[in-house]
Structure formats: structure tokens, C-alpha cells
């Protein structure tokens, strides 16, 4: 059942169409990743979902909420860099947030203690937020988003500002949370999306380039791929340069580095013999040649339009 339905969502800033006709559904209980490079329109989309930004046109519907009615109480939101009142303690902020969401004073206090422990900053709850580290603020941000048991948790780049350890910890926390509620989060890191989510929406310049269940996308667009790595000497490099310009039919380069290239092929056997013949003739110093299947990363790179 669709918890959230978004249709033909558009947001323009002056002449720029930051979000250009985005539509998708978030099914209850799923974890969905909004994936795309910086500037693809992820944050703008999310801010329209949370009601912070008014869409230029389009529709956002929440299951069980009449159109035009306030659905903010159903959503818990963690922005990219959460900001708090530095003069409050972590616990005070959580109680404040909880009471704003309609919890009673007693319930808010109980939830706050519970969530402080849950996100791992129980000991810091009585300290002023001004003294918190970035990782602690991110955890507090997660706690305040969860305070009223929202139906939909919306997270904007939840781990991108964290160091590797903080990242690991928040990711495993999110792993637990997705079992309890519906989660929508944005990221520009494919790996994070692959690790957590059931569905992906890949955005590119304001539109959804590819979207659907992760498994289906993986299956659907699976193609043979050849990975060629040379030793990177001058001869091999200039050969690579020239050869890429006269690639035989049915092979295309999906990404390349100075010394190597990934090739997507239509017919694997033909491609393999063509490449091997070419390598022998030109006497290339091959370091590695691997035959395999495209990964989600190839799809992602193709979808967001990098060479």
C-alpha cells in the first residue's frame, strides 16, 4: 500500500527547474533511497515532502490524510546538517520537539530518555547542545525525528557529514530503524543505498532517471562487462586512447581511468575475441582482464550521465 504518493512534482527557482516532474510512490514498510549526484534535486524534493518548500506544481498525498491537510505530524525529518538551540540540553530539545508534536509532558520525557539511550548519547543528554560534536548532533537529530513515532522517516544525506566510524554507527542504527518504520533517505553514495534500501530512485537534473525495487533494477539492466587494466606505460596508454576511438560495434566504454577501461558489451563472446585479438596485435602490457556482469554502479554512472 502506498504511504506516500508524489505526482508530477515541479519546483522552479527563477529560470532553473530544480525539480522537473518527479513522481514516485513510497510503500509502507519499505526503505527507499533517493540517489543522485549533488545538485540533482534531492534536497529540494525532500524539502517539498516535508512542507518546508511549496511546490511550483504537482501533488503530494499521504495515505489517510485528506488533500491539503497538514500531514507534518506523520513525518519525522532529519535535515542534512541538523541545527539545534545550543543553549538547550539534548534532553530539553527532545522534550520540546515531542511536545510540539502533541505528546504530553510525561510521554515526551519518557520518549526522550528512551531515544537518547537508543541513539547512544544517553550520557550527554544533560549537557548543552553547544558542546556536542557533529556525530552527536546527527544522533540527536535522528532522535528528534523519531520522537513522535512518525509513519515516514525522511532523512537528507544522513551520513555524508560523518567520519567513517560515525558513519558506520549511524548506518547500523538506520538498519534497525527500517524494520520499524518506513524510511526515505537521500544520498549521493551508491554503497549506502545498496546496503540499506529496498527501492532506489536515481535522480538526475531534477528528474528520476531510474526507479524501482533494487533487485529488479539489478536484474533488468544486467549486461556483460569487460574490465581491462593495463600497466599504465606510455605505449599502452596511447593505444588505449586510439582504440577507444575506433571501438568495434556492440562494445561501448562505460567508464575509464588513465590506464584502464570498463566496457559494456552486447555479445560477450564476440567482444571477448575482439578484445583479445586487439591486445595481442598491439602488444599491450595487460595487467588485468576481467569478464563479468554490470554492477549497480555501472547503472548509476550511466543514469547520472558520467562518461
Amino acid at each position, binding site marked *: 500500500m502506498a504511504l506516500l504518493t508524489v505526482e508530477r512534482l515541479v519546483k522552479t527557482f527563477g529560470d532553473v527547474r530544480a525539480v522537473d516532474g518527479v513522481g514516485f510512490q513510497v510503500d509502507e514498510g519499505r526503505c527507499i533511497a533517493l540517489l543522485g549526484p549533488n545538485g540533482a534535486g534531492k534536497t529540494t524534493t525532500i524539502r517539498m515532502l516535508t*512542507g*518546508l518548500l511549496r511546490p511550483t506544481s504537482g501533488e503530494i498525498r499521504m495515505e489517510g490524510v485528506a488533500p491539503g491537510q497538514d500531514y*507534518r505530524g506523520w513525518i519525522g525529518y532529519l535535515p542534512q546538517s*541538523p*541545527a539545534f538551540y545550543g543553549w538547550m540540553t539534548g534532553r530539553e530539545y527532545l522534550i520540546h520537539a515531542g511536545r*510540539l*508534536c502533541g505528546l504530553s509532558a510525561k510521554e515526551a520525557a519518557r520518549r526522550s530518555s528512551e531515544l537518547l539511550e537508543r541513539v547512544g548519547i544517553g550520557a550527554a543528554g544533560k549537557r548543552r547542545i553547544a558542546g556536542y560534536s557533529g556525530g552527536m548532533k546527527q544522533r540527536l537529530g535522528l532522535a528528534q525525528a523519531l520522537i513522535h513515532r512518525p509513519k515516514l522517516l525522511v532523512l537528507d544525506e544522513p551520513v555524508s557529514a560523518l567520519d567513517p566510524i560515525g558513519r558506520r554507527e549511524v548506518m547500523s542504527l538506520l538498519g534497525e530503524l527500517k524494520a520499524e518504520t518506513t524510511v526515505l533517505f537521500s544520498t549521493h553514495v551508491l554503497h549506502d543505498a545498496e546496503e540499506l534500501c529496498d527501492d532506489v530512485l536515481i535522480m538526475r537534473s531534477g528528474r528520476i532517471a531510474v526507479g524501482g525495487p533494487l533487485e529488479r533494477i539489478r536484474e533488468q539492466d544486467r549486461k556483460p562487462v569487460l574490465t581491462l587494466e593495463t600497466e599504465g606505460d606510455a605505449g599502452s596508454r596511447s593505444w588505449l586512447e586510439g582504440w577507444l576511438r575506433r571501438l568495434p560495434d556492440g562494445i561501448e566504454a562505460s567508464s575509464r581511468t588513465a590506464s584502464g577501461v570498463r566496457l559494456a558489451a552486447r555479445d560477450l563472446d564476440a567482444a571477448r575475441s575482439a578484445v583479445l585479438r586487439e591486445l595481442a596485435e598491439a602488444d599491450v602490457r595487460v595487467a588485468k582482464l576481467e569478464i563479468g556482469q554490470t554492477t549497480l554502479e555501472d547503472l548509476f554512472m550511466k543514469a547520472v550521465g558520467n562518461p
Partner: protein
Amino acid sequence: MRTWLVLFRKEWLELLRSYRLIWLPISFLVLGVSQPITAYFLPDILASSGGLPEDVVRSIPLPNASEVMAGSLQQFGTIGLLLLALSSMGAVSNERASGTAAMILVKPVSYLSFITAKWASILAISWLSFAAGYVASWYYTVTLFGSVGGPSVIAGLLYFGLWLSFVGTLALLFSSLLSSPAAAAFGSLALAALLQVAASSLPFEQPWNPGRLSQLAAGGLDAALSDGGSAWLTVAVTATAIAAALYLAARSLQGHSRS
């Protein structure tokens, strides 16, 4: 209503934790007391500084009690107003720039509640500070210069309090329209000064002008400062303007709050 009280509690706590609840009333208190004291000691000060011949000093008339009270109001209207504008200039813009406003406005909170809770806290601190300074000024004036009529003192308190509330509301409005706190403070003070100058120097009557409020307050105390006009229209226009400013401030939050 419950949400509003939660928001107001937060604003009140912020007044306390930022020490505004201490330094603003004390500043107004000292400001209110300094007028009667300097007026009382002015002849002594002039005599001891030796700049003027003694008979000139002796011929300077001591002001009467009402004039001293009106003088205190003038202090509140300049320095006091400046302090209030400076202390509330970032009320909305700081929260927007830092992103704390966005964190609150994604919760089921109405924009008008968010603004009016801030407004109520600005009014609370303004009235508290002003009342402290005004009562102190009254006490010192009565002790040093003799009694002033009770009704005119109360009328002065109410008119001037309304004037401070009006300027405080302007500061809040500009703080939500402009991203720079300094610009908000300057804008509200400049507009207030403009209205005041217009009220006192333009040759036609302006019963609608909120800038008259400080004059109404002082005029009740010291008849020489009165312009003789009626007050009800001024009060009505000011109240309407305050309501309109609050509505505008709440509107400006929509769709512009930066993350």
C-alpha cells in the same frame, strides 16, 4: 493553544538563558533613575565644573516633576528602544540562518504560532523592562521633585508601552523579512524615528500615526508636550498595524525558510 504555550515556554527559557531577562530590566532601571538624579544634581555639577559664573548657575530653573518624568520617557524612547531593537533583531533571521527554524517548522506547528510566540516574548521583556525603569523613575522623581498625578503616570505607562510594543513588532517583522539582523534593527528604528518625526513636525494632524504614541505619553505628563489630539484612533491604528505585521511575518516564513 498547547503548542503555542510550548513555543512560548521555549522563548521564555531563551530570554532567561541569554541573560536578557537580567540585563534589559537593569538597563532600563538605571536609565529611568538617571534622569531624575542628573536633573537634581545638574546645578551642582555645573557649579563644580566651574565653566559658568555662579549667578548664571543659580538662575537655571529646576525642572518640575512632570518635566523630569517626560525626560525619562525620552531616554526610554531613544536608548531603551535601541536596546530592545538590538536584543530582538535576530529573533527570526538567526533561526532561519542556522536552520533551527526549519527543524521546528517541519513539526505540526503553525507559522503564526511560531511568530506570535516570539512576539509575546518580545512584548513580555519590553513591558517588564520598561515598567521596571518607569516605576523607578517615578519613585525617584517623587522623592526628589515632588508628586506627579497618578492617572497621567498610568496613561504614560500604557501609551509608551504600546509604542515599545509597536517598535518591537516592527523589529520582529523586519527580522523575518531581512536576513541581516543589523538591517532589521536599523530598519525598525529608522521607521519608528520617521513616524515620530512626521508626527511632531508635519503641519497637519495625524491622529492615525503610531509615532504619536510617545508624544501622547509625554503629553499626559507635561501639558507643554501635548498636541491636544485624541488618542483612540492612534491606538486602534497601532493595534491593527501590529496584527498586520504579525500576519506578514508568518507569511514570509512560508517557502523561504532555508535549511
